């Protein structure tokens, strides 16, 4: 789920205000935007690129590696199914508040066709100096400078802060993988960790988690097998506990989900868990120097 500069990107919902703003930013940064979709504006050009009605139509004319969706919540399921049907292999879903049943439906369809979904509710992907997909401030050199640290984050704003802290500490970022803040998402913390572990340009990994769910615990199982250093910050130590999901929630979640559970699972796997985001670059700098 790392995005590379050579990949062609279709912007679904390109004519909207956010779609236009971010498509323009992505293109200026080096992302190969090949066009976009809007069912009502097919045949027009927008940002000097073609507009198709659907991803399926676009795929008949050109090869598409990645689709990024600037689509309102209740339109996401149909747009994602369109992208999957079009054979697009990587689908980045930025939208917040997608109904979870819709997410589960589109993920089942994606799994069947071998498409990788990132999100929903992700800020996107960045490969520093090459391209970005989504709405991360990749173009801000104080936040993104090329380097060796891969960053995984459920949150865009917190991921931005962590990248900034890395750059302030004199480190740089190989790739940023925003996985999304929803309870059910296509690409998990563990998936992103495996992908960055395989990435030859990434020498160390910063993992930004949040309380709730069990993705950090699952990532910890993989981290045990890694040689690249990993440092983590888990947000939510001071947050009031969330609502309990009845007996069923307790049965399915067990003891996972709390700050303490995540911290101890990660630490047992050799991951340094820092008290503030600013601790992460310090740890990684030390571990990169001694590697």
């Amino acid at each position, binding site marked *: 789920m790392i995005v590379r500069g050579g990949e062609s990107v279709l912007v679904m919902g390109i004519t909207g205000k*956010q779609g236009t703003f971010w498509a323009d930013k992505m293109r200026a940064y080096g992302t190969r935007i090949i066009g976009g979709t809007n069912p009502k504006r097919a045949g027009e050009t927008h940002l000097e690129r073609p507009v198709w009605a659907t991803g399926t139509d676009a795929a008949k004319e050109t090869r598409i590696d990645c689709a990024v969706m600037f689509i309102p*919540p*209740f339109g996401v399921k149909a747009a994602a199914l369109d992208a999957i049907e079009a054979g697009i292999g990587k689908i980045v879903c930025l939208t*917040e*508040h*997608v*109904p*979870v*049943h819709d997410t*589960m*439906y589109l*993920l*089942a*369809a994606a799994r069947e066709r071998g498409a990788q979904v990132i999100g929903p509710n992700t800020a996107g992907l960045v490969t520093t100096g090459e391209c970005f997909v989504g*709405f*991360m401030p990749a173009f*801000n050199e*104080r*936040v993104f400078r090329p380097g060796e640290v891969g960053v995984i984050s*459920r*949150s*865009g*704003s*917190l*991921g*931005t*802060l962590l990248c*900034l*802290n890395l750059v*302030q500490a004199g480190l740089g970022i190989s790739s940023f993988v925003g996985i999304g*803040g929803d*309870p*059910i998402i*296509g690409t998990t913390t563990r998936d992103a960790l495996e992908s960055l572990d395989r990435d030859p340009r990434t020498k160390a990994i910063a993992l*930004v988690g*949040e309380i709730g*769910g*069990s*993705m950090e615990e699952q990532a910890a199982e993989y981290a045990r097998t890694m040689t690249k250093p990993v440092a983590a*910050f888990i*947000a*939510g*130590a*001071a*947050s*009031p506990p969330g*609502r*309990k*999901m*009845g*007996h*069923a*929630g*307790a*049965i*399915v979640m067990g003891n996972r989900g709390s700050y303490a559970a995540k911290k101890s699972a990660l630490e047992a796997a050799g991951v340094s868990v820092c*008290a*503030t*985001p*600013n601790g992460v670059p310090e740890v990684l700098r030390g571990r990169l120097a001694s590697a």
Partner: protein
Amino acid sequence: MNFEEYAAKPLLRAVGIETPRSGLATTPDEAESVAREIGPCVVKAQVPTGKRGKAGGIKLAASPAEGRAHAGRILGMTIGEHRVERLLVEAQVPIAKEMYAAVLNDPDSKGPLLLFSAEGGMDIEEIAEQHPGALLRLPVDIRKGLDRGALAAALPKELPADRAALIDTLARLYDAYAENDAELIEINPLVLTRDGKLVALDCKLVIDDSAIPRHEALAKSGTPDKATELEAKAKPLGLKFIELDGNVGVLANGAGLTMTSMDAVRHFGGEPANFLEIGGESYTKAKPALELVLANPRVKALLVNFCGAFARTNVMAEGVVTAWQELKPDIPIVFTIHGTSEEEAIALVRDRLGIEPYDLMDDAVRAAVAAATGASQ
């Protein structure tokens, strides 16, 4: 959104799952008259929390007079922070066997998960832990719905109830889950009556908040989140606001960064006064957000932490600075701003408020905590 038992059970009835005859009561008089109509009954506190029975909120009544007496004692009780204002008065059912059934969104399989146990009742969590084999976990492909054949094959060979009837009830439960965008629908206990019927004695329901716009009629019977006066004001503005006990006001964008700001306040020896996130599509609402934070008299210093990805920091900063100049609060404010459009945002704070934002969040948080502590002494 949570639904109490009385609001959840109609959804079971709508898919053809039987529930006992019942009526709602908010006074002992009403409880007595429902009891007179339905005979021996159970008086059940309606509060959005578990362990009602252990708290004394569920009582059997053999007569209308006893129902009235129980209602008098239960109404006004506090169960897990919730005051009992409503009772469900329900016909007693002759129980032969208690079972357990639920369908929920499962993050591990990324799809619906059906849970069933022939052993049910209050101790289901212990049963699941000590006898994991006694609990059936069946992942469902949401595109196809519940596969009755797969369910039949997965159910234990020995069942306390009629196999076909049980499969039918579980399939109906799945329908109620699917039709209503449920995060969770749980029947505990699902009972086999002595005359051989399957009846849902309790129901817990949570509907996905993101799906509420397509279930507006249903949402009217949901339990509103327990909110303070200020929290209630935040809701129509589309802001996520939680009041806390500390004295450092926190204003940040995005749930992750807001939580982190609170964590950092505590880490550096302070206590946050609130959780207030203005991320996502609400990032233009910095002004009403600031008004909410400042309406809390405990706030002695304000930490503004913006890290713009999607949210443009200049838009958020403009809102805060304008509101600050209008409201002229008499407390220190500390900024740290990064990300999309940060140059404009920082210049704006510097020029209009004469304040220099901190480059490091940790430094900003230390300053805010020190200012709040100084002001409190």
